[in-house]
């Protein structure tokens, strides 16, 4: 079933914006409504095309009126974000959790809503040394995230499950994304790896999984256009460790003891808009997800592997390596070619 009227929340995020653009260019979709509390930049607005922007706070009852009046049949909720929009953590939590509750309440009262897609995160799995190395959709976290974005995301997923129970006729999709990274998108990780000297935790080398922003948009679009009931882990194939990624980007790793990482991150966050380390649930022990269900049940194979995502990011951003491995490691070849002219 192709949706007729789609509502996309969080159009200021890259995922919401990109998705709205794609949907707007799809002639089968009658209307695309974009909602956010602040209007998007003129650039994004221009590219949104025929998609309509509605300045609304999803914490407000107004959203129910929008959904009912516009006869929305598909809701894509992408505004859940780890990053405080100016107002700090408290506002962030309000927007994430209360916003989702209001949005789902609005969906529940509208009989026309047929499909709800939620952007979630791998953070719901938490990260502890007692967790298995790879999370499947059915893995229960050993230690529930105690606060911050990870807790928000876990609670939001819970609300969606509750909604699905009360409205069994609605197809709900939860997409648990690993870290977004792409050459154009401004994400938590992109700012982190753009730092010249990257703070990394002492004695821990978390495994990272990345998903290309293009893949993230593509899979969200797939869930918007077709029925994909259930929860799916979304990540590129393969794994990079944090120090490996830092080396690939040619950055200088600054090893800090774990307790110091967060204060330093907080100070850095004031200087540069940096979201790392996340306020809570720093995945010191890594978060790797099994994506078999995505590939087999949803039929979506990410085009970029984790390593390709990272390399695309490094190249697309034009990050100049501070530590040039070719110069450091290739020294021998130069010495040899200099001292033994006859050879090679």
């Amino acid at each position, binding site marked *: 079933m192709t949706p007729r009227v789609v509502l996309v929340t969080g159009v200021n995020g890259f995922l919401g914006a990109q998705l709205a653009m794609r949907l707007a260019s799809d002639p089968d979709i009658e209307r695309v409504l974009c909602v956010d509390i602040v209007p998007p930049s003129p650039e994004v607005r221009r590219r949104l095309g025929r998609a309509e922007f509605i300045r609304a706070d999803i914490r407000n009852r107004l959203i129910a009126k929008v959904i009912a009046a516009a006869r929305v049949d598909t809701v894509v909720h992408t505004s859940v974000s780890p990053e405080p929009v100016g107002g700090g953590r408290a506002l962030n939590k309000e927007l994430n959790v209360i916003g989702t509750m209001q949005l789902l309440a609005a969906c529940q009262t509208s009989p026309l809503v047929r499909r709800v897609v939620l952007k979630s995160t791998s953070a719901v799995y938490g990260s502890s040394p007692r967790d298995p190395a790879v999370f499947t959709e059915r893995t229960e976290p050993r230690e529930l995230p105690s606060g911050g974005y990870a807790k928000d995301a876990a609670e939001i997923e819970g609300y969606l499950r509750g909604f699905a129970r009360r409205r069994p006729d609605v197809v709900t999709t939860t997409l648990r994304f690993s870290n977004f990274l792409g050459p154009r998108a401004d994400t938590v990780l992109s700012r982190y790896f753009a730092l010249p000297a990257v703070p990394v935790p002492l*004695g821990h080398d978390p495994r990272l999984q990345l998903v290309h922003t293009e893949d993230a948009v593509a899979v969200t679009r797939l869930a918007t256009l077709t029925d994909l009931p259930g929860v799916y882990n979304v990540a590129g194939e393969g794994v990079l460790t944090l*120090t490996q990624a830092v080396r690939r980007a040619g950055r200088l790793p600054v090893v800090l003891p774990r307790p110091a990482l967060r204060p330093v991150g907080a100070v850095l966050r004031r200087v540069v808009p940096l979201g790392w380390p996340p306020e809570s649930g720093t995945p010191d022990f890594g978060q790797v997800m099994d994506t078999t269900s995505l590939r087999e049940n949803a039929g979506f194979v990410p085009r970029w592997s984790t390593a390709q995502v990272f390399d695309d990011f490094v190249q697309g951003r034009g990050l100049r390596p501070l530590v040039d491995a*070719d110069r450091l490691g290739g020294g*021998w070849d130069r010495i040899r070619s200099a001292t033994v002219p006859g050879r090679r």
Partner: protein
Amino acid sequence: MAREDEDVRPGGDPCRGAAAVRTITEEERVAEARVIPLRPGRVSGGGAQPVAEDTTASEDLPGTVRAARSGDGPAQAGGGRDGEAPEPDPAVDARLEDRLAGLARFVRRRLAGEYEVDEFGFDAELNDAVFLPALRLLYERWFRVEAVGLHNVPGDSGALIVANHAGTLPVDALMTAVAVHDHHPERRHLRLLGADLVFRLPVLGATARRAGHTLACGPDAERLLRGGEVVGVWPEGFKGVGKPFRDRYKLQRFGRGGFVSAALRTGTPIVPCSIVGAEEIYPKIGDIRPLARLLGLPYFPITPFFPLLGPLGAVPLPSKWYIEFGEPISTAEYGPDAAEDPMLVFDLTDQVRETIQQTLYRMLSQRQSVFLG
């Protein structure tokens, strides 16, 4: 990386007494052709006869591992040069150069982050180039391990190696990993299942992940086994590794049989493995419980030398080790649903435990000396 290091003997059973049998690389043979070696035969493990004459010494790959493992080859080659050859051998020069170039390439790859890590964090290149050579020194020189029965470990499919645990520190698990890698014809990497304590600690946890080890839990074990890996598990856990010296070679309870469930679900064989020698490396004669509780450790050991001699007490006693891999116990015929049958799980657990215990008794009765074997 370590493939070029040494190869198993062509023909014959490559597993039997493998630790004892040293293969001889190209340069060693060159050297042996020139000088009379100081020690007749190249027996590092003792016991078995030095029969190997390796003909497949690799020339094509520059060996960082071989360079790191400088115990014999280069020393003998050097001896050969000093003693006999007055003019520098261009072949040796070229080889040295290749080796340095290989090392430079390795360093470059590591600095550029151009290496593969699997979803568990296993870094095969680093393992082959750094961790295994370091452990190999301990394996060959210190404990003089003799490993037998490696033909019981499958070459291309999953298997669960279950062994007895001892020695205060889990050195036995690491030595078994070396045995499976160095003396199995397929040079398999043993993926160990460790306690969460290991993965909680900084540095140690990250290192363990890089070496391919993961948390001892059902999902991880099954995932590795389904992926066709050889997985090593020490089901006694802390009860085994930290038992007092007077209880040596007495198997403790085998957990709750979780390892059997994992094998049943994946239909992989269980290879019982008996290790003799690990009990004597740090004879644990006491335990400072309050200190252990303070540090969050399962025990704080007192050995005859630790903490009496301080860091020196942390040097393991050089006991002579034997590792025997027994007949595999097949689980495929029960089907994956059998994992839900607790009685079968208990029976198989007991069978594995009994096999290891009986093998230990037999091996102990054959052992004449703790340190000489």
